[in-house]
């Protein structure tokens, strides 16, 4: 990585950087105050670039290499309570080692932004992408967003700070980047000027929740059954408000940077006239889109819905959209063993989202691309064919493993 690649001039520049470097650049643009690190692939690529920025004098922050992921996340939690804008991240079992710190963060209303370089959970030790690491915190009050390219990684990191630090929300946000496909692949990325970023992202103001001698408060006292349910309800209310804030922030992002992401919660690709659609998260979007272009040449009208925000989950909006199609296939790059119909996490959630809907198409689920296995174009064609069969009413298992040696 040359210095030139990370140099941010006043005007927008283009640089050849990885998804991880894009997140590091966002940290610089957001002028983050405290960053903690503990190495684990593929997240460690972010900490390396952050370290380089700090060493080169381009980023003025406290950069602390902790002795474990647990401490890594505890340190930024406390720094955030004291008013610092913070960044953190991990991958796979590193994220799991921080689990206790991850659970205590949302209720304290800490707007931490973290990057999860998605990685399969051990055992066996493996580096490839699975989404189970980030998904493990889905019930706890973390906002979760998936991106599929380096530009979106940079933009979403800026958006994440703005959403998380909104006083109506004050909840942590984890940005998921697929290991290898995004964290280690260099692509051309537009880097906005710091002027624009400053116009978009106000400074973090913790207000009455600031842990400071001038504002004597105690954070996180012990509480019993008289209190806990109300505290949970408060955190739930913050997550509910996050929907509105996310919409506002994306509108503002478009206004200031001139780059539009359309619907913030999910991207629709070739859905307008689609008979059936596939739904998935992360970089599997690339082979899916290539396959869709091929299938459309053969007259198969297949579309794709790429989920960005998994928490909050835009259930009503998604149900309304997916109700238009004859059948919907869900591609899970994760597993949830023993789950309803033995499906993955995303399939289970989408089915739950669809249940109250008047239009409920068949929703077959697929487990695919685990451990970083390539989701191939033929895999996508095979899944589409199965979804077409489901649309025709053919009985079949609700969960099928694709790309498995069987």
């Amino acid at each position, binding site marked *: 990585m*040359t210095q*030139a690649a990370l140099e941010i001039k006043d005007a927008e520049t283009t640089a*050849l950087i*990885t998804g991880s470097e894009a997140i590091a650049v966002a940290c610089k643009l957001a002028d983050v105050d405290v960053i903690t690190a503990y190495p684990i*692939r*593929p997240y460690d690529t972010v900490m390396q670039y952050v370290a380089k920025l700090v060493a080169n004098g381009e980023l003025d922050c406290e950069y602390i290499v902790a002795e474990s992921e647990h401490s890594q996340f505890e340190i930024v939690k406390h720094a955030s309570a004291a008013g610092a804008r913070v960044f953190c991240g991990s991958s796979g079992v590193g994220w799991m080692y921080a689990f206790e710190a991850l659970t205590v963060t949302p209720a304290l209303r800490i707007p931490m932004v973290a990057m999860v370089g998605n990685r399969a959970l051990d*055992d*066996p030790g493996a*580096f*490839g992408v699975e989404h189970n690491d980030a998904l493990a915190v889905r019930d706890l009050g973390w906002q979760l967003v998936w991106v599929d390219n380096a530009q979106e990684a940079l933009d979403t990191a800026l958006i994440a700070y703005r959403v998380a630090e909104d006083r109506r929300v004050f909840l942590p946000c984890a940005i998921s980047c697929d*290991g*290898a496909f995004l964290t*280690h*692949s*260099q*692509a*051309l990325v537009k880097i906005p000027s710091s002027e624009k970023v400053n116009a978009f992202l106000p400074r973090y103001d913790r207000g009455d929740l600031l842990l400071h001698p001038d504002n004597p408060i105690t954070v996180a006292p012990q509480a019993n059954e008289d209190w806990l349910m109300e505290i949970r309800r408060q955190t739930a209310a913050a997550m509910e408000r996050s929907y509105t804030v996310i919409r506002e922030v994306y509108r503002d992002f478009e206004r200031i940077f001139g780059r539009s992401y359309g619907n913030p919660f999910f991207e629709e690709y070739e859905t307008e006239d689609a008979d059936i659609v596939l739904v998935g998260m992360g970089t599997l979007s*690339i*082979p899916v*889109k*290539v*396959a869709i*272009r091929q299938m459309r040449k053969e007259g198969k009208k297949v579309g794709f819905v790429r989920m960005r925000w998994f928490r909050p989950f835009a259930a009503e909006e998604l149900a309304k959209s997916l109700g238009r199609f004859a059948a919907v296939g869900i591609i899970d790059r994760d597993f949830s063993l023993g789950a309803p119909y033995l499906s993955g996490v995303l399939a289970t959630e989408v089915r739950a989202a669809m249940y109250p809907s008047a239009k409920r198409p068949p929703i077959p689920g697929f487990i695919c691309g685990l451990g*970083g296995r*390539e989701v*191939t*174009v033929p895999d996508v064609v095979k899944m589409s064919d199965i979804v077409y069969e489901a649309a025709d009413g053919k009985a079949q298992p609700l969960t099928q493993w694709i790309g*498995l*040696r*069987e």
Partner: protein
Amino acid sequence: MGRLFAVEIVYRGIFQKTLAKNISRAIVLAAHCEGKPGISFGRYGDSPERNGIPAKSFAIVATDDLTLEEGMAKYEPKEVDISIAVDDTLCKGVESWAWYGLQPINRLTKPGGTLIVTSREQPETLIPMCHRKEYPYQLAIVKGIPSFSGLWVYKDDHTDVRILGAIARLLPELFGLESVQKAIMQEWQDPVKASSAARSYERITSVTVRPEQGNPEEPYKFELPKWWEMGEGIAIPGIAPGHTMQDPESQKSGGYQPARNPTFKKFTTRTMRPVVNFDTCIKCTLCWLQCPDSCFDVTPEGLYDANMEACCGCGVCEAVCPVKDCVTMVNEIAFQDNASQWEMWRKDKPVYQAWLKEKIEHRPERSHGFRYRGQYEEQVPEMMEIAREDGA
């Protein structure tokens, strides 16, 4: 549908990682100068890159964004326009950390594609090292020793830009020299590097390698088991204990040869190999004890034969041997096979001594890693000579 280009850079991890990354980055940047989008990435499964283990970087470029997506839809390219080996000993084949068995250096090279090798050798030396292909391809040699350019201990030797200049000449559809020079100025702001690229562009030539030329060995093939065929609990069988060795002359049994993994051999990590003078060996056991890969076979008479199927070429045996010139590391390029030195010595000692002498004379110090202080300084005159020849 536009055209998709793919280039692979095969290098020795970890020493040449930055070099390979610089090359793949600059390919994308040069193509970008001509309006072609691209991406650059290291093969994820190769990491962590143990010393010397063969690894790969890729650059994928297309004439338009949609075509680029077709390339990005694959984990890595299934075929490439250009394969680059930044160390000529890689021509013997590569076995990466992400194990796929020993694979030919030119495995991904397209019909009519080009293999670029940085080497001081001639095509006649390199072609027999590379596995045969069913179709003709081009071989181009960028003169040079295995470069550490980009690694902090070595100064920049322009290997990266000389390869770029060669690509502009060999595959002008990808990008022209002007774009290479523009990208060099963007990335390094160094006009001397830009002129090195131009010189390489002018000098590079290639020869056609025909299907009947090259190493006839059948590349390793394998089929991965189905999920229900695999044992449960992520448990795999260990390596069985070893056995005695048999003397090829006397037929006597004795000593000890450890059993080894029959498929994961790792010897393509090697850039140098030890040759052993069995007549001066004092049987002190140090090489056998210290070898990190347990590659020494104990012969019936208690000598130590470095097994070339197992040796990674680290040089520890040479370092710990207390006898002067008993174990000597020799550049891997001097050898055609992995035959047992001890068996050769047992069959005919004078012939073996002559062979040993010839190999040791042919020992230019071109290993990866510093074997002694001042080695780099010793190499500078050789590199200067290459530069002069290149510009002559």
